[in-house]
């Protein structure tokens, strides 16, 4: 069974089916989209099972490997003259990301149940977008990776520009332009990697065999890292994210903050650190410092926000900072923490944006001071908000804690070539964010959901509908499962990370 | 006076006439006069065709171009007359640009011309034979023109349909009374 291809093709096929439905039948369109994404969730689950079957015997080998072994591989020549191939497959990290994306898109479709305006185009574009995301996660040919990366970025422009709110055109433009700059950097990096390895192949597994010249790595690494960092909201290239998230429709925010921003961390880890260990060694500390700024800056920025979406967007900046911080700390704990944080933040922020969309759909405002006392009116939504908030501030038992604990330990343990005083200081500074996060989460949610009911009209609003309960309930369940049984996720993502870390550990100690 | 000399003299007569009329086409402030001058230029061109030995072409030129197209243009001029454009006098800047471009083009042409060897008409030209032209137009062979011919007919049809479609929207009754209409 070509699992990897199925993962990519299924959403695309669903998009085509959606396009074939007459535009007037919005209800049918929704059901098609839901069925398609539901089937995808199922297929992703089966694929995980297949991966698990294939990968478990290699678990011991993986601990000492220096190259990631792929599973469920499909390889077809595409442009043989340039060494471009259709090479798809999975490893633990990409499997985890595929599962996350499946879940988020499924819940995103559920959360978009109310979309009426041009529903057909909306769902088709959404599915196209997610096709790109899945493509990125399963492709192991850099060129194919880039193609999918662009597919993932571009529909965003239309989705925000057409179905967004507020200053949507500006936000869409800004987002697209900044991400394009990022992908230009990535392309430069990819071409450099391809060219330096002889210009024969874009195959990641083969490029990983090649030892790049440290001088080349020294300049390619920051290019690639910043290129991916733009999507991963690396300070100071994060400013597209608050505007973009605030303007995007619910499902797009969910997908974007939940999954698309993870492409940044994924790429930085998979391409940046993995292919360019010496570059990572040279630049690790710099990027740790920059992402520490990210973490605190996003958290402090969130305190002053009055729009729920800006609030969540700044908190995303902070949380995505953890991802890149983990990547930049260049050790197993950090890398694992980064991947766990990707999953955790993906679910959490998708939950947040889904809930914000639901609250906005009822109150028609996202301004926190205009809300108030909603906990009395919509207990389900408030409860889910608080669970998400608790995950966000790293409450143990929810997924955020596991990830942040890894990232902090990773930063604190540091690596062989950086003087520990730097990494530890940065880590301790970064831990301050747990307090700041508590402050802004409790302030924001308290103002919106606690206290007396602010507007008497709110008393007539109803709580979540069945689809909304299903969507948010699934995400909450994912947060809880990932938090209570972190071993499941760790077992999945750990083996391929050994390869990344073993390459780093094999480096001659720098400085 | 030999036929050669006569032809040469006729050529120069028509050339002078043609150029001066052309000057009027582009330079006359009153568009209607320019249109009439264009008619003259095209007439001269018919004479040129004749001098070159293309009798059929000359006839077509008179019939279609002068008699059809330019008449349309005259109508057009009259249909779109406005007070503001009654005198189409170029501004100095436009005039300069026009002169530079036209002269520049002419000079470039002259340069190209200088690289060509001169030649004269050698004898009767086949193009004078209407049947030959007809055959070439309907020839499906490698030297034939049947495809362009058909394409041009489609083009004409399209232009016809398009012209009707575009102009159909004009609801003359609904037009606001325009002071310019009587200029």
């Amino acid at each position, binding site marked *: 069974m070509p699992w990897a291809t199925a993962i990519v093709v299924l959403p695309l096929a669903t998009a085509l089916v959606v396009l074939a439905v007459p535009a007037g039948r919005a209800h049918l369109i929704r059901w098609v989209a839901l069925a398609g994404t539901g089937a995808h969730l199922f297929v992703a689950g089966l694929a995980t099972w297949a991966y698990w079957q294939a990968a478990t015997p290699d678990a011991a080998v993986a601990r000492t490997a220096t190259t990631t072994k792929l599973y469920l591989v499909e390889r077809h020549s595409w442009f043989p003259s340039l060494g471009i191939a259709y090479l798809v497959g999975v490893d633990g990290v990409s499997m985890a990301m595929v599962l996350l994306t499946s879940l988020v898109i499924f819940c995103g479709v559920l959360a978009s149940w109310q979309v009426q305006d041009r529903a057909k185009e909306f769902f088709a574009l959404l599915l196209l977008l997610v096709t790109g995301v899945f493509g990125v996660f399963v492709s192991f040919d850099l060129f194919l990776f880039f193609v999918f990366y662009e597919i993932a970025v571009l529909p965003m422009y239309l989705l925000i520009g057409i179905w967004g709110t507020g200053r949507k055109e500006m936000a869409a433009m800004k987002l697209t332009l900044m991400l394009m700059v990022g992908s230009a950097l990535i392309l430069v990096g990819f071409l450099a990697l391809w060219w330096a390895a002889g210009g024969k192949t874009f195959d990641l597994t083969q490029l990983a065999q090649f030892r790049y010249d440290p001088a080349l790595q020294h300049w390619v690494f920051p290019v690639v890292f910043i290129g991916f960092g733009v999507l991963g909201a690396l300070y100071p290239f994060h400013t597209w994210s608050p505007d973009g998230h605030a303007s995007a429709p619910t499902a797009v925010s969910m997908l974007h903050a939940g999954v698309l921003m993870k492409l940044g961390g994924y790429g930085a880890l998979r391409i940046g650190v993995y292919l360019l260990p010496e570059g990572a060694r040279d630049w690790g500390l710099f990027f740790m410092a920059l992402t520490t700024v990210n973490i605190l800056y996003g958290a402090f920025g969130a305190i002053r926000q009055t729009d729920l979406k800006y609030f969540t967007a700044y908190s995303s900046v902070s949380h995505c900072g953890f991802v890149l911080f983990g990547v930049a700390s260049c050790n197993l704990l950090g890398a694992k923490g980064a991947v766990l944080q990707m999953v955790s933040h993906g679910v959490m922020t998708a939950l947040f944006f889904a809930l914000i969309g639901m609250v906005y759909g009822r109150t028609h405002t996202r301004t926190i001071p205009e809300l108030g006392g909603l906990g009395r009116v919509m207990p389900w939504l408030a409860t889910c908000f608080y669970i998400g908030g608790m995950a966000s501030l790293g409450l143990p038992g929810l997924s955020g804690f596991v990830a942040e604990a890894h990232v902090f330990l990773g930063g604190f343990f540091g690596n062989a070539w950086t003087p520990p005083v730097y990494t530890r200081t940065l880590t301790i500074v970064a831990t301050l964010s747990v307090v700041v996060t508590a402050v802004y989460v409790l302030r924001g949610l308290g103002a919106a959901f606690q206290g007396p009911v602010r507007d008497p009209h709110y008393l007539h609003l109803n709580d979540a509908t069945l689809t909304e309960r299903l969507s948010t309930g699934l995400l909450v369940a994912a947060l809880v499962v990932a938090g209570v049984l972190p071993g499941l996720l760790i077992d999945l993502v750990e083996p391929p990370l050994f390869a990344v870390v073993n390459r780093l550990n094999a480096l001659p100690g720098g400085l | 006076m030999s036929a050669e000399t006569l032809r040469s003299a*006729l050529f120069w007569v028509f050339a002078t006439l043609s150029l001066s009329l052309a000057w009027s086409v582009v330079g006359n402030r009153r568009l209607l006069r320019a249109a009439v001058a264009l008619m003259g230029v095209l007439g001269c061109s018919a004479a040129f065709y004749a001098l070159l030995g293309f009798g059929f072409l000359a006839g*077509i030129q008179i019939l279609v171009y002068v008699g059809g197209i330019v008449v*349309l243009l005259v109508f057009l001029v009259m249909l779109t007359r406005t007070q503001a454009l009654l005198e189409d006098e170029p501004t100095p800047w436009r005039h300069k640009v026009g002169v530079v471009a036209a002269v520049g*083009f002419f000079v470039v042409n002259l340069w190209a011309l200088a690289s060509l060897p001169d030649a004269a008409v050698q004898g009767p030209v086949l193009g004078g034979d209407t049947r030959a032209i007809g055959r070439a137009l309907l020839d499906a062979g490698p030297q034939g023109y049947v495809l362009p011919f058909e394409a041009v007919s489609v083009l004409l049809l399209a*232009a016809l349909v*398009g012209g009707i479609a575009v102009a159909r*929207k004009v609801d003359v009754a609904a037009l606001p009374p325009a002071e310019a209409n009587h200029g």
Partner: protein
Amino acid sequence: MAELLHAGGSGLHAWLLVTSALFSLGIYGLLTRRNAVGILLSLELCLNAAAVQFAVFNALRAPGRVDGAVMALFVVAVAAAEVVVGMALFVLLYSQRRTVDVTELTGDGRDSAGGPP
């Protein structure tokens, strides 16, 4: 008189000189006229000059063939099509804008709104 229809009296250079001059005059008109119809007239001048030049080359360089003549015919046909479309456009334009002054036709997307700006 019939003889006149069989051969040209002047050389290639003289012919081309005249057609080039005609074409150049057309360019001048093309660039200076404000009236769209005037531009169309100038364009006819250019087209006609080109058509004549086809005929000239045909007669003087390849008298055994008819390609130039055919091209000249095509030019006439294309000119007819062009005038038809141009006429339709300009009449419509005039009905909406009350002018065919090309300098007032700026592409700011408001053309369809109708009425003079």
